[in-house]
C-alpha cells in the first residue's frame, strides 16, 4: 500500500514538474480548502468544547491532463475533524487517486471515480466535501461512445466507507454496473430533423456481499435495473425512469425480502419569461447499499432525491427541512416561475419575477391482506407505484417575489408554509406535525463606489398546542409553541470593496417556551476575496441545526467560537 502511494505521488509530482517545464504540455487544475475551528463551552445553547479545543479539516485536489492522458489525486486531513462532520473522517492521507485515458471514442479510468447512471436511482457515486459525503468507487470504469448519440458505461469497484487514520476503508460489498443511453435523433440521420427528440436508456447494477448473518439466508448478489425515457417536443419536455431492485434484506428495511421499486417523472414547459415544472416520485424499499448493515449516509449505491425545493434562507433551510425516506414515500412537486415584462406597469423598468412552488410527500400504501409477514417468504406487504396512503410526511408551499427597482436597489419578499411529520422525517425531539410559517424580506442596495449593503429579515412562527396536545390558534392564551418555538433572524452584509466584506447575523429564539432559552445567536464574519482565493474569519454562536448544501444535509451541533477558512483554486 505504502509503495503504491509513493508511486502515485511521485508520478503526480513529476508530471507537475514536467508540465511547468513545457508550457504547451499538460494542464494542472485543482483546489484546496482548510477550515480551522477553536470552540468554547456555552452551556446556554448546549455547545461543548472539544478536548483538543482546536479542530482542522483540509483537503487538496490536483488534476493533471496531458493530451488523452489524465491523472489526479486528493490528500485529505482531519486533525481532528471539525464539529458536526461525520465521524468516519480521521487522519491524513490520500483520499482519492486515479489515472486514465480518454479520447472521443473511449474513456478509461482506473482508481477512484464518481459516476451517475440516469437520474441516479440505480447508481450514483458522489462527493460533497462540505457535507462530508463521499461514496466514491474504487476500481475501473469505461465509457464508450461508439456512434454519435450513443453512450455506454461500465463500472466495477468497491465503495469508500470511511477514512480511518488517513486510509480509505472500503465497504464490505463490491458494486458492478452497466448503463446505456441512445439519442435516436442524433444516432439515426433519418430522425435528425424530427421535431420530437427521443432518448432511451437502461441500466443494470449489481452488488455482491457475502452472507454474514447466522440466522438468515441472505441473497449475496442483489441486482437493481430499469429503464428511462426522455421526450422533448418544442417547449415541452418529459422524462421518467423506473428502477426495480431485487430482494435486499438489510438493516434499513428490517431484513424483509420484498422487492423495491422507484419511479421518477419530471415534466417541464418553458418559454421566455415563463417556466413550469411538474414532478412526481414513488419509492418503496429502495435503500441500496454495498453493505447491508450500514445506515445514515454510508455506502449508498443509489440516490433517491427528495422532491422539494432547496431553500437558501437560514431559518427556512436549516430548522425543519425534509430528507428523503428511502424506505418509502410518494411525492409531488409543482413550480412556476413567471417574469412580469420589463417596462410594463406591474413589472417596472427592470422587471419583476414571481416564483410559486409546492411540494408534498406521503407514505406509500402497504397492503397486508393475505400476506403472513412471519411466513418463510419474508415478504411483509405488497405495494405499487403511486399507491398512496393518507399519511402526510411533508408539505411546503412557498412564494417568492423579486423586483429590481432601479440600478441600485432591489428587494425580495418570500413566504413559506411548511408541515413536517417529525415522527417520520425526524429533525428534532418534538412529536407529531411541526407546522411553520416563515416570512422573509431581503433588501439590496448598491452604492456608487462599488460598496453595497444587503439586509435580510426573517421570522419563523410555529404552531401552538394546548396542554392536552390539541392545536390552538397563534393567539390562544393556553397555547404553547411546539419544539423550540418562534425565531427571528437579522442579517446585514456589507461589501466594502471588491476584496473585503463583513457581515453580522443574529438568530434570536424569542419564542422559546422555556424563557431561559430565549437566546441570541450573534455571528460575525469578515471575508477577503482575491481572484480564486477566499479567506473568511467568523466568530460567534451557531445554533444546532441542519447544514445543507444542495440537496443533502447533515446535523450540526450548537457551537460557540472561532472559524477560519481558506479556499483556493488553481
Amino acid at each position, binding site marked *: 500500500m505504502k509503495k503504491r502511494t509513493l508511486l502515485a505521488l511521485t508520478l503526480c509530482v513529476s508530471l507537475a514538474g514536467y508540465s511547468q517545464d513545457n508550457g504547451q504540455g499538460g494542464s494542472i487544475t*485543482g483546489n484546496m480548502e482548510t477550515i480551522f475551528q477553536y470552540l468554547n463551552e456555552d452551556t446556554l445553547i448546549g455547545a461543548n468544547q472539544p478536548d483538543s479545543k482546536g479542530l482542522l479539516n483540509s483537503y487538496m485536489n490536483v*488534476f493533471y491532463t496531458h493530451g488523452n492522458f489524465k491523472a489526479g489525486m486528493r490528500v485529505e486531513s482531519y486533525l481532528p475533524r471539525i464539529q458536526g462532520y461525520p465521524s468516519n473522517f480521521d487522519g*491524513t492521507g490520500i483520499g482519492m487517486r486515479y489515472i486514465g485515458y480518454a479520447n472521443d471514442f473511449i474513456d478509461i479510468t482506473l482508481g477512484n471515480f464518481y459516476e451517475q447512471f440516469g437520474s441516479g436511482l440505480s447508481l450514483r457515486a458522489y462527493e460533497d466535501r462540505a457535507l462530508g459525503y463521499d461514496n466514491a468507487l474504487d476500481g475501473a470504469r469505461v465509457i464508450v461512445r461508439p456512434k454519435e448519440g450513443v453512450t455506454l458505461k461500465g463500472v466495477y469497484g468497491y465503495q469508500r466507507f470511511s477514512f480511518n487514520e488517513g486510509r480509505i476503508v472500503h465497504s464490505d460489498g463490491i458494486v458492478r454496473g452497466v448503463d446505456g443511453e441512445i439519442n435516436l435523433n442524433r444516432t439515426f440521420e433519418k430522425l435528425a430533423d424530427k421535431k420530437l427528440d427521443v432518448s432511451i436508456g437502461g441500466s443494470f447494477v449489481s452488488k455482491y456481499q457475502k452472507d454474514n448473518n447466522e440466522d438468515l439466508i441472505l441473497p449475496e448478489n442483489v441486482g437493481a435495473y430499469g429503464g428511462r425515457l426522455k421526450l422533448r417536443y418544442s417547449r415541452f419536455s418529459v422524462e421518467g425512469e423506473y428502477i426495480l431492485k431485487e430482494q435486499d434484506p438489510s438493516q434499513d428495511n428490517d431484513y424483509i425480502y420484498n422487492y423495491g421499486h422507484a419511479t421518477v417523472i419530471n415534466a417541464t414547459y418553458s418559454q421566455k419569461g415563463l*417556466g413550469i415544472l411538474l414532478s412526481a416520485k414513488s419509492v418503496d424499499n429502495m435503500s441500496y447499499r454495498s453493505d447491508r448493515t450500514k445506515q445514515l449516509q454510508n455506502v449508498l449505491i443509489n440516490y433517491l432525491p427528495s422532491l422539494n425545493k432547496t431553500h437558501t434562507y437560514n431559518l427556512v433551510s436549516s430548522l425543519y427541512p425534509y430528507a428523503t425516506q428511502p424506505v418509502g414515500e410518494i411525492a409531488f412537486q409543482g413550480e412556476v416561475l413567471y417574469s412580469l415584462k420589463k417596462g410594463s406597469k406591474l413589472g417596472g423598468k427592470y422587471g419583476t419575477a414571481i416564483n410559486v412552488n409546492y411540494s408534498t410527500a406521503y407514505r406509500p400504501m402497504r397492503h397486508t391482506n393475505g400476506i403472513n409477514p412471519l411466513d418463510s417468504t419474508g415478504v411483509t406487504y405488497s405495494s405499487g407505484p403511486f399507491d398512496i396512503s393518507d399519511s402526510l410526511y411533508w408539505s411546503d408551499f412557498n412564494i417568492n417575489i423579486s423586483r429590481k427597482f432601479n440600478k441600485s436597489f432591489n428587494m425580495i419578499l418570500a413566504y413559506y408554509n411548511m408541515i413536517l411529520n417529525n415522527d417520520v422525517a425526524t429533525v428534532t425531539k418534538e412529536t407529531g406535525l411541526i407546522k411553520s410559517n416563515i416570512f422573509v424580506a431581503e433588501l439590496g442596495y448598491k452604492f456608487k463606489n462599488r460598496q453595497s449593503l444587503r439586509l435580510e429579515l426573517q421570522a419563523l412562527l410555529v404552531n401552538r398546542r394546548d396542554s392536552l396536545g390539541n392545536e390552538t390558534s397563534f393567539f390562544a392564551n393556553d397555547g404553547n409553541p411546539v419544539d423550540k418555538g418562534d425565531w427571528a433572524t437579522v442579517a446585514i452584509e456589507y461589501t466594502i470593496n471588491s476584496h473585503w466584506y463583513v457581515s453580522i447575523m443574529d438568530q434570536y429564539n424569542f419564542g422559546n417556551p422555556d424563557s431561559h432559552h430565549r437566546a441570541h445567536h450573534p455571528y460575525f464574519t469578515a471575508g477577503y476575496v482575491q481572484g*480564486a482565493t477566499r479567506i473568511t474569519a467568523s466568530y460567534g454562536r451557531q445554533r444546532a441545526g441542519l447544514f445543507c448544501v444542495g440537496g443533502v444535509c447533515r446535523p450540526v451541533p450548537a457551537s460557540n467560537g472561532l472559524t477560519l477558512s481558506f479556499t483556493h483554486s488553481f
Partner: protein
Amino acid sequence: MKKIFLLFVGVSMMFNSFGQDEGHSDLKKLPSVQLTDVNGNIVNTSDLGFDGPVVISFWATWCSPCKRELNTINDLYVDWQDETGVNLVAVSIDDEKTKHSVSVYVNGKGWEYLVLLDPNGDFKRAMGVNNVPHTFLVDTEGNIVYSHNNYAPGDEEELYEHILELVKK
C-alpha cells in the same frame, strides 16, 4: 518519512498554484468533460464552439449570490456581446434533486446564456471549484486567464474590465 513527503507535495503544489496567479496562467487549459445542455444536447467543455472569449460561471438554483450575479450580467449581456463578442456559459451544479428546476429558472428569467448541467460535479471537480459562485474567463485559445470566487455587486464590472483587456490584445 511519509508525512514529510506529503508535506513536501502539499507545499510544492501550493507554490505551483501561487506561481500561476502571477501570470503563468496560460498553463491552465479548459478541461474536457462531456455535459448536456438544458435541451439534452451533449457539449464538450473543451470545444464550446464560440469564436470570442468565454465566461464560465458555476451556479445553482439554490445559490442566491450566483443568481444575483447571473441576473445582473443578463441585463448587461446584450451590450457585452456587442462590444466584445463574449459568450457566457452558465454551468449548473444542481444535482438530481433540483436539476429539473434549472430550465424553469433559466427560461423564467429569460437568460440568453448557454446553460450546461453538471449534476454529478464532474466539470466542477475538473475546474477545481470549491464552492459557487465561481466565474472563469477563457480566451479564444481555451486558456483560463482569470477566475473569481464569490459574488458581490460590482464584481461584474471587474469581470468586464478583464474581458475588455482580453479583446484589446
